[in-house]
């Protein structure tokens, strides 16, 4: 009896620290998750309503039968609004083009900064990094004037090109390439790959996690970009989703169609979630500094 008691009292003492730590970690994680999820919940809640007016008392379950019916109606309204499918397609086309261009340029530039030796390399790299600190609005007017001068205003290329070449992508790619041992490229040289083949067949595939991270970052920034399309686009045919959202504010902001606006929001979030789900596994490896690499 005495021995048994002793055992019972001694074991938990050791575990208390671990338990306390677990509770702390999970507690903080849960609180953070709630903080992040509440706006999503609110979005869904609003999208599953039938009018601009809030019900009182509010129905907090968005998945009830009536709510679902309201959502379908909202979806129909939104999808039929103006050229909504075209605008959606615009967003997809622009973002995919920006991602492709940005990852291509970013990986080549990152590779050059990581591997090639040329005069002024480090200075140039820090100059590229420094552009991260310049907010887009600062250069927006200059970009606008530039587009005006080359007659690219209100064109797809005008929408796409200024968003390509992100310093963040260059940085991510460079950091990752630096963790790849040079010997692998030496081996490829001896096996007979020419330098550009080494990049595409060996170095870039090895940098897949960084490419995933760059893809996600550039996709999100382009997909959510509001200011540049707002300045660039003067024709309804070129509207992207963030601009479309503005319509549901109502005329002069007098009336805001929250239910429709939130429905558009949900439609807007879907591709981002899909992209993240696809690349999440690589993404984490791409942005975490790989201490185990060597």
């Amino acid at each position, binding site marked *: 009896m005495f021995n048994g008691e002793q055992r019972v009292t001694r074991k938990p003492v050791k575990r208390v620290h671990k338990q306390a730590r677990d509770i702390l970690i999970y507690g903080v994680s849960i609180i953070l998750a709630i903080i992040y999820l509440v706006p999503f919940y609110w979005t869904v809640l609003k999208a599953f309503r039938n009018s601009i007016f809030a019900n009182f008392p509010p129905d907090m379950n968005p998945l009830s039968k009536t709510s679902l019916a309201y959502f379908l109606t909202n979806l129909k309204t939104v999808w039929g609004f103006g050229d909504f499918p075209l605008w959606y397609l615009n967003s997809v086309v622009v973002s995919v083009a920006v991602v492709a261009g940005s990852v291509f340029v970013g990986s080549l530039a990152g590779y050059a900064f990581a591997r090639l030796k040329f005069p002024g390399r480090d200075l140039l790299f820090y100059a590229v990094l420094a552009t991260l600190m310049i907010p887009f609005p600062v250069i927006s007017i200059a970009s606008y004037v530039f587009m005006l001068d080359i007659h690219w205003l209100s064109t797809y290329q005008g929408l796409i090109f200024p968003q390509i070449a992100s310093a963040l992508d260059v940085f991510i790619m460079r950091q990752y390439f630096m963790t790849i*041992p040079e*010997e*692998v490229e*030496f*081996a*490829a*040289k*001896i*096996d*007979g*790959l*020419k330098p550009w083949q080494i990049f595409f067949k*060996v170095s870039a*595939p*090895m940098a*897949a996690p960084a490419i995933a991270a760059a893809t996600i970052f550039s996709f999100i920034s382009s997909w959510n970009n509001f200011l540049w399309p707002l300045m660039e686009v003067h024709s309804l045919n070129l509207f992207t989703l963030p601009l479309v959202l503005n319509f549901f504010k109502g005329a002069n902001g007098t009336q805001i169609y929250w239910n429709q606006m939130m429905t558009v929001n949900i439609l807007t979030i879907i591709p981002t979630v899909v992209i993240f789900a696809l690349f999440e596994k690589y993404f984490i490896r791409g942005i975490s500094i790989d201490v185990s690499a*060597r």
Partner: protein
Amino acid sequence: MGVRIENLRLKYGDKLALDDINLEVNDGEFLVILGSSGSGKTTLLRCVSGLIEPTEGSVYIDDVDVTGYYPSDRNVAMVFQNFALYPHMTVYDNISLNLKLKKLPRNEIQKRVEEVARTLHIDGYLKKYPKQLSGGEQQRVGLARAMVRDPSVYLMDEPLSNLDAKLRHEMLGELRNFHDRVGKTTIYVCHDQDEAMALADRIVIINGGRIVQVGDPTELYDHPRDSFVASFIGNPPMNLLDCTVSKERGVTGLYFQGKKITAVPDLPEETERVTLGIRPESLIPDAKGPIEAEFDYTILSGSNNEINSLAGGKPLKAVVRRSMSNVSEINRYQHGDLMHFSIGKGMLYIFNAETGKIIKEMSTDEIESAERPDNTVQRF
């Protein structure tokens, strides 16, 4: 045939990474380039492979001047310390990449890859990815990748350094067998003299970007050209004692910390200070011995005791067969205790104290005759 390096020099800015390298590697020879880290040994290998272009000089492979050739056009194969396999390709693709780029027929490629894989016992792993294999298996894949192309020269850059001790020992034997089987010129870089001794037909010792000495393993061990080679080859390394030279009653003697430790035949150079090299095997613990040292610690290795002590602030090592030595006496020593050594049988090396170049090497037998002044020898 083989490899020839002529007047090779490599500059990084103002720094000379390699200087005045002249080297001939015979056809079918296993040559080991031995040096400590930063000595330029890997750089030299990369100059041969074409990964680095020398500032001056030429590299010949099979009597063709390949300086300026792209690495793959030199028909060399290379094995790397960190294996350097392509992680996103299967073992089969890793091995066959070069053959595919040479546009060999598919069935020919398959035949050669499978043959090489069988020889190296990795035929079960062809569909796997490098990270699914152990270190030893990965290095076999690296070896297979080199072997499958049937190159003129194998270049190996510390291929065993990333393996654990037991596996390294196994692979040493396999590498030597491999070389004997293919009979191809091999240049092998390492920093481990045991590895070099085990594998090499000849060893090149490189230090500070310059070749210090070239010779077969026993030659380097028996006849080091300078004190660097002497302290580099041999395990534990040769003891180097700073001695003064002085002549008394017609006999030249070497004095260490004021005590005469040995007589020597007349030196070809007039000098007051020399460095005396004594192999640890030639030192005997002897209470009446002239070399005074502070006991530090003992390491047991196999049938030997390695006694580590400090003489004049520098490490002094003696290797004593346990069966021969009075173990219980050595075991009584405490850290810091005073002990004495005398010189037993073996070779002694006298180096120039400034340049480190060898002045004279002699066996202890020769010294015994030097001990007696010339006239006494005449009289009897």
